[in-house]
């Protein structure tokens, strides 16, 4: 096998996998599409219940909330992994067997989690905030809580294997993770033209942060599991919270950093302008790597027992971490598209929307990361407002761009309808959350006061439109799956 970075498509060890790389990617997309829809329906169920348009008992509402949270974090991780793996294997050797193993582990883990929730009644929140899983108020059993945590551990193991394999592939070509990230180019120590392609830079960053994040997450999960069965084994709740939010923050942010590879690779196909990685690009990714690992204290701004310096650092890094997104990726997308003569279709539109959603979502996120504002906004609907902006209108839009790109389903009139349903519905949906947060509506409440219902009802309508758009994209892909999988040509 000859490897020439940046140029040659590198074949992985397909011979040792039962299915081809292309089939594996298609399997990922089918699973991710269907689970995304299911999780969106759970989200709609919550908004409809809060709007008092349907009746859902609070104990079941919180089960749905836990499943929606865990499911969305997991499936966006899996969707991001599909995007990353599909493109990074053009530049470095990766294992199809490991890629498939991750999917199998995900499905096994998902079964444990769904069983914990819908059979065992586990409603400890996706963040399993210690020691809540062990304090159910007799509404779920220890075994249900354990099933949830074991499910997360299994899923985490799959992702760990995948990221280790991608890191191995990067090391084999670039000789080090710093080279894969483009550190020398970032600091002007090597020519930009010799730097790694954007897909490799992003994959290196994600490998670094997610390997660390998953290991920390696994540690706190094991601690929580032991506490479930041996209550006398206790743990510092504040330290547990630090570990959980480090893991959670890193993992959910990595989903965006994986999905943005689709923008780097797909948008130039439509604009006929290469997405050139330059010094600012590499510098932004090096900074993002450091900031993703250090910014998590902004989740703990209302934990007054934390060292003040850590919370101040959390605020300052929150502000700083917005700059690489806004000034490199968003600016890069704008200049790549600007008067390019692009013929818009849903695929290109979703990639562009993805960057816009990510960049726009940074604004309310920075606001929430400011301690003075967090004092009156923390854990209100402002929080789901900002993260749905950069996840739903950002990350998931990037993923759906990839789905329509692989499925070649982006040019139909129906796809255009779906694009506008998704964009308009998504905007309404997130603005309903943000405006609710501005009037102090709490997040994660099964029952709402009468004065909060208008926000819930507008949000419900937005959610229904989003789901209609996503449904068209996913069903369009599934309908075309037989012909796409029969095709030998790689998209």
């Amino acid at each position, binding site marked *: 096998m000859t490897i020439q970075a940046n140029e040659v498509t590198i074949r992985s060890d397909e011979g040792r996998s039962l299915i081809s790389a292309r089939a594996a990617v298609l399997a990922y997309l089918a699973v991710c599409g269907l689970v995304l829809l299911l999780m969106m329906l759970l989200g709609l169920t919550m908004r409809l219940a809060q709007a008092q348009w349907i009746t859902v008992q609070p104990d079941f509402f919180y089960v749905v909330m836990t499943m929606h949270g865990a499911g969305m974090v997991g499936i966006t991780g899996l969707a991001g992994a599909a995007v990353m793996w599909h493109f990074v294997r053009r530049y470095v050797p990766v294992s199809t067997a490991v890629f498939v193993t991750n999917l199998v582990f995900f499905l096994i883990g998902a079964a444990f989690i769904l069983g914990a929730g819908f059979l065992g009644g586990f409603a400890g929140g996706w963040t399993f905030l210690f020691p809540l899983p062990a*304090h159910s108020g007799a*509404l779920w059993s220890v075994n249900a809580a354990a099933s949830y945590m074991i499910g997360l551990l299994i899923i985490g193991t799959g992702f760990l294997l995948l990221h280790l394999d991608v890191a191995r592939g990067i090391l084999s070509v670039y000789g080090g993770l710093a080279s894969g990230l483009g550190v020398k180019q970032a600091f002007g120590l090597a020519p930009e033209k010799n730097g790694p392609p954007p897909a490799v830079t992003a994959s290196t960053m994600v490998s670094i942060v997610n390997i660390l994040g998953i290991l920390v997450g696994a540690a706190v999960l094991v601690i929580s599991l032991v506490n479930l069965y041996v209550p006398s084994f206790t743990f510092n*709740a504040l330290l547990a919270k630090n570990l959980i939010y480090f893991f959670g923050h890193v993992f959910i942010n990595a989903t965006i950093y994986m999905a943005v590879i689709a923008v780097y690779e797909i948008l130039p196909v439509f604009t006929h302008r290469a997405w050139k990685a330059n010094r600012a690009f590499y510098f932004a990714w090096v900074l993002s790597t450091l900031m993703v690992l250090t910014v998590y204290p902004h989740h703990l701004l209302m934990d007054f027992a934390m060292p003040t310096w850590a919370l*101040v650092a959390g605020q300052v890094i929150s502000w700083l971490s917005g700059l690489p997104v806004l*000034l490199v990726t968003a600016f890069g997308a704008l200049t790549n598209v*600007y008067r390019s003569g692009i013929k818009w279709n849903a695929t290109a539109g979703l990639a562009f929307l993805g960057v816009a959603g990510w960049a726009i979502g940074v604004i309310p996120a920075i*606001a929430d990361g400011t*301690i003075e504002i967090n004092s009156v906004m*923390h854990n209100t609907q402002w929080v789901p407002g900002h993260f749905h902006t950069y996840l739903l209108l950002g990350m998931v839009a990037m993923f759906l761009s990839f789905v329509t790109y692989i499925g070649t389903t982006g040019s139909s009139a129906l796809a255009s309808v779906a694009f506008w349903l998704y964009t308009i519905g998504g905007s309404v949906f997130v603005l309903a959350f943000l405006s609710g947060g501005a009037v102090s509506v709490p997040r994660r409440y*099964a029952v709402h006061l009468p004065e909060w219902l208008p926000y819930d009802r507008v949000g419900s309508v937005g959610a229904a439109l989003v789901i209609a758009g996503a449904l068209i994209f996913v069903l369009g892909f599934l309908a075309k799956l037989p012909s796409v999988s029969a095709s030998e040509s790689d998209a």
Partner: protein
Amino acid sequence: MIQELVWATSLTLMAVLALVFIWVAFKARIELPDYGPAIASAYQKRTWLFGLAMVILIWANYRTLSHLPYVSSSAAQGSAATVQPVEVVGNQWSWTITPSNLKAGQTAEFHVTSTDVNHGFAVYDPDMRIVAQTQAMPGYINKLRYTFTKPGTYRVLCLEYCGVAHHQMAADITVAAR
């Protein structure tokens, strides 16, 4: 209220950014014959934008970091010469607040803790807007100071998900006219 200011500012900035994307998307249909000068101009603008962003970042952080809610901070220390200690204990799913009757103009120093899981101690004013909050954690006492300026019934809600009756975990603080 700070919430209104944050909402208006965020909405404005989000709308401006959205309009930039929409403008570029609509302009994109017409191809520019020579892309080189346009990209050079764009990179120059980016350098200026970076400078502007850094100025805003430093200014905003300087302004906001001088208003930290933590009792250890100088801003909170200087908020009142004398404070009324208020003991707050959260547990699934109720609050114990002692005393829960205060006077307008009085600075309360809430000593907030939990006997079981994480809770969020949030004080809502009579118009149901949050005026202050801190976490209630097992093993820790978080100190929160707030000066009640107007009389009325303030609602305390739990803002950290704590189990299936989380939304029912509420209490009142009565603030009498001075």
